[in-house]
């Protein structure tokens, strides 16, 4: 005897009904819709360390993009059925088309697009557009007839929210049979194959002598499986014949509610796993428990939520349900009632607790006994060593601050950087601040996604430990990169990830590339990461001597190339170039090495003298030299006077000013010589010229801070300021008299 149970994947209602039905039926064999290749892993479900949600991952070890997940939650009918079967010690088998075959078909189709496999699909139209939606969601059709906007809701109300006696299953088959007849759509070829395979598995089970077989499948498939005698075994065999398999591997991976809530891999996605969990465990008092959870979550957020609120909200939800003529309040009613009662109608407040409430922060676990690949083992070990286990087992976003001076935090930093390199973006590094990068602190934002489990498997081609894999990965990337800044970025990350074995190759490539690069901008962009690496290397316990050699070569190159690169640059580009020069200036100053600084200054000086250089750059370079006290105040004043004199056209004068005053108006305020020159320049300008210049001047002055501008305004009001001749007016003797008191006050 064979009994078919059409269920809805992850529907807690069908789980309850199914379990009751199984207890009455006492079958000796369970056939469950699940990929056949993963069957060997079924036994692990009985392991007490297995905590759903978990997923069966089946993948092609040669191409990791070809993988499917079959997730299970504790409320999934399949999960509970398997547990039941294992407990009773009866045969439990998967019956869906093996992933090996699915991949085989895809491969064959890709190789021979015009050759069709299996006779059944010869009349198949190649593309479906109109009924595409129908194919994806056949139940939506039923729901629409019943007047529901989405199929989930309809199923919930009809089957799941009411306590249905177990004899709903024959009626589900009936409904589906009618639906399939009504739609009369051509079955997609893959579906045909799957159903043929399911029937073949059933035949085999019967042949094996099982007396009482229970078949658990998605409701959609239930009629064609019940009609087993109507289908000829030879036809089914024909459909499945001649397909070359692609070898697959399977494993269990931990899953999470947030993953379960989206459509992924197998079967239906779930809108609200947390709601389903509640329905499964506490069907009778689901509303009260849900609202209590709302209240508790709001209290965590320091918002008022009393028990009276809960009572009111439950009642409002029930009333809403009756207005909508629903038997019991669903998640929609719950949500709206909570919005009105707890948030005074403001939905934005609900968003605060949305994730925890609707999706739930449950993360599954897989016991360590389950065989995993070496890289996964190494990863688990590294996580433990880096003391990141808590973060690994949470679905929340966690901000982690690492102090690189402690051993475990340094390990965590290395691990996160390595994973980042390998494309497992578990942690996102936050910038501490522009200029304190590379010091002791690192801030990471950590969000673990269950599908990283696959990523880990997919990068296992690079090595058996996280370190080995990332070194190999970086080595390969090193040879591919043709662009200097990109390469220096890689060097920087590799240093942070402590991939010592990858460094020699990287440095060699760096030297080669920098020798070939004539683009001074790229050289300048590469400079900063390198200099930072050297400067802060000691905190990270890095050996950076090889990098110093590279810098030794790069800086002189920049100094030689830069002046000429500044000639004849167009306006838009100038700004960018200026930023980069500023950046390089900062980096080189950090090096604190006399010989570099000297040649750099020389090259800056050259720029100020060259013709055909945009005056923005000239002004900027002069300022850098002025800041370093290479040129004197009077030299600067002279230069300024020259640049701002009537002979120059106004645009270039304004540009020069912008470059010279970039970032700081203080210079103007405290240097009366400069101020007076500027003052005079403005004063002598005729009105028309002034009008043309105003936008450019505004651009410069807008960058100054408000107090600076105020000060300037005050200065401007006072008119021309005469310099006080300090030396002549100052009486040293009288001045010294004060010093004793000052010393006393300061306690020196």
């Amino acid at each position: 005897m064979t009994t078919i149970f059409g269920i809805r994947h992850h529907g807690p209602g069908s789980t309850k009904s199914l379990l009751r039905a199984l207890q009455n039926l006492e079958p000796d064999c369970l056939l469950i819709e699940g990929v056949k290749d993963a069957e060997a892993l079924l036994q692990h479900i009985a392991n007490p360390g297995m905590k759903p949600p978990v997923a069966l991952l089946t993948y092609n070890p040669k191409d990791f993009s070809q993988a499917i997940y079959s997730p299970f939650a504790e409320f999934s009918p399949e999960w509970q059925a398997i547990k039941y079967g294992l407990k009773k010690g009866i045969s439990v088998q998967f019956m869906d088309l093996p992933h090996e075959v699915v991949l085989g078909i895809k491969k064959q189709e890709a190789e021979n697009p015009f050759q069709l496999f299996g006779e059944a699909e010869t009349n198949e139209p190649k593309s479906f557009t109109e009924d595409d939606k129908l194919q994806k969601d056949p139940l939506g059709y039923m729901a629409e007839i019943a007047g529901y906007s989405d199929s989930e809701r309809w199923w919930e109300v009809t089957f799941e929210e009411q306590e249905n006696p177990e004899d709903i299953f024959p009626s589900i088959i009936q409904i589906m049979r009618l639906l399939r007849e009504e739609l009369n759509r051509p079955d997609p070829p893959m579906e045909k194959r799957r159903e043929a395979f399911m029937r073949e598995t059933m035949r085999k089970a019967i042949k094996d002598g099982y007396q009482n077989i229970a078949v658990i499948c998605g409701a959609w498939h239930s009629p064609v499986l019940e009609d087993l005698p109507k289908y000829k075994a030879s036809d089914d065999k024909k459909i499945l014949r001649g397909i070359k398999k692609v070898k697959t591997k399977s494993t269990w991976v931990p899953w999470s509610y947030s993953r379960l809530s989206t459509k992924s891999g197998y079967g239906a996605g779930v809108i609200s796993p947390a709601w389903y969990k509640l329905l499964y465990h506490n069907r009778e008092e689901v509303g009260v428990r849900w609202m209590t959870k709302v209240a508790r979550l709001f209290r965590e957020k320091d918002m008022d939520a009393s028990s009276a609120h809960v009572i009111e909200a439950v009642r409002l939800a029930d009333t809403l349900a009756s207005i909508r003529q629903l038997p019991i309040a669903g998640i929609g009613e719950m949500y709206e009632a909570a919005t009105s009662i707890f948030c005074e109608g403001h939905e934005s407040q609900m968003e605060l607790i949305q994730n925890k409430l609707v999706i739930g922060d449950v993360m599954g676990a897989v016991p360590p006994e389950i065989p995993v690949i070496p890289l996964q083992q190494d990863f688990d070990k590294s996580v433990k060593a880096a003391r990141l286990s808590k973060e690994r087992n949470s679905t929340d976003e966690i901000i982690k601050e690492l102090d690189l001076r402690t051993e475990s935090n340094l390990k965590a930093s290395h691990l996160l950087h390595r994973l980042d390199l390998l494309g497992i973006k578990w942690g996102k590094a936050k910038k501490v601040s522009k200029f304190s990068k590379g010091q002791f602190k690192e801030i990471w934002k950590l969000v673990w996604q269950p599908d990283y489990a696959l990523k880990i498997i997919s990068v296992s081609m690079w090595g058996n430990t996280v370190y080995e894999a990332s070194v190999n990965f970086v080595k390969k990337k090193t040879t591919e990169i043709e662009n200097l800044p990109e390469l220096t970025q890689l060097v920087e990350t590799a240093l942070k990830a402590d991939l010592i074995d990858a460094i020699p190759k990287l440095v060699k490539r760096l030297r080669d590339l920098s020798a070939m690069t004539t683009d001074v901008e790229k050289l300048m962009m590469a400079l900063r990461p390198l200099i930072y690496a050297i400067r802060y290397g000691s905190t990270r316990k890095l050996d950076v001597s090889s990098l110093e050699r590279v810098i030794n070569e790069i800086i002189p190159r920049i100094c030689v190339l830069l002046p000429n690169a500044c000639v004849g640059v167009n306006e838009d580009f100038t700004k960018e170039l200026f930023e980069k020069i500023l950046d390089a200036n900062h980096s080189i100053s950090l090096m604190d090495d006399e010989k570099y600084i000297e040649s750099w200054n020389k090259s800056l000086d050259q720029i100020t003298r060259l013709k055909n250089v945009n005056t923005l750059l000239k002004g900027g370079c002069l300022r850098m030299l002025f800041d370093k006290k290479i040129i004197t105040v009077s030299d600067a004043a002279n230069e300024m006077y020259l640049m701002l004199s009537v002979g120059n056209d106004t645009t270039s004068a304004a540009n020069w000013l912008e470059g010279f005053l970039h970032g700081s108006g203080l210079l103007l305020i405290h240097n009366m010589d400069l101020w007076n020159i500027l003052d005079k320049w403005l004063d002598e300008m005729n009105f028309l010229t002034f009008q043309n210049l105003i936008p450019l001047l505004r651009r410069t002055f807008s960058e100054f801070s408000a107090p600076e501008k105020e000060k300037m305004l005050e200065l401007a009001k006072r008119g021309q300021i005469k310099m006080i001749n300090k030396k002549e007016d100052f009486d040293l003797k009288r001045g010294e008299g004060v010093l004793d008191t000052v010393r006393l006050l300061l306690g020196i």
Partner: protein
Amino acid sequence: MKNKTKTLRPHAEDAYAKELKALAKIDDKPRPTNWNLSPWAVVNYLLGGTMEDGTVIEPKYFGNRRLIEVAVATLATDRALLLIGIPGTAKTWVSEHLAAAISGDSKLLVQGTAGMNEDVLRYQWNYAQLLSKGPSEDAMVASPLMKAMQDGKIARLEELTRIPSDVQDTLITILSEKILPVPELNTEVQAQRGFNLIATANNRDKGVNELSSALRRRFNTVVMPLPSTMEEEINIVKTRVDKIGQSLELPASVASVHEIQRLVTIFRELRGGKTEDGRTKLKSPSATLSTAEAISVINSGQALAAHFGDGTLKANDLAAGVTGAVVKDPVQDKVIWQEYLETVVKERKDWKDLYRACKEML
């Protein structure tokens, strides 16, 4: 509606008596005690539609179905309903129609003011009686609220947040214990089933009396939003303009959709602080510029066109109204309006007439 009354504005239960009757006839759902209609029918009365027997119900409220469902569900529980929103979001309108549909009586209304005392909410005395016969039930003048409690009807309270806090607190006993004590006679009025309160409040005015959290807890709050899309807003303005035009006996002049569209665009843009295409940032004036105001601008424009113009609504007829609606603060708003005219209205191709007409007004 044949039997034209002379009243300027008939009550909702009179204006829509036919619909209410038709709904009551087909309504077979359970009704709470003292309700004229089932909650289901009330929702349909507000949102409109065609019933099974072919009765057409005009929509009274355009917008989110969920809001009305929550409002009606609230009234069916024993919590009071608070409609909150900026002026002109149909709060009073919805409350009137809810009361009309549920109790068949929208007249039990207390207008909240800054100067009111407790007695307006509870009861007052007929002083001649009081002096001649002493305190007795005959000498009491019941407030609308008290009447609603006695008859099991819906009472309405406008502008709840304008009422001073100490007076607001009178409501707490009424709403939680459902009684109104009369200490003078040593009795109390107990509310009958079906009694509930719909209060409205606007969250735009400054200096309002915030509700105490004790009182707030007695209310379920529904926030009334501004229309979310342009089409929705135009639809509202058009429907209401036609309706009001009829009741004001304005000579038939159909406000063109084009003009309504322009007006709604102006209102939405100024309100939202940017143009509809999202490209230009605008300053927002102090005026609320709600949908209700758009309706009244169109109406006054229509009156102008009908009595002084050629009967069709033109830019000149609108200009005065728009200017009046936007420029509430003579200094600040005027600048904003001018800026808008120069940067946005002037640039639009077929808006030249409107630009000129508005310029003349300034």
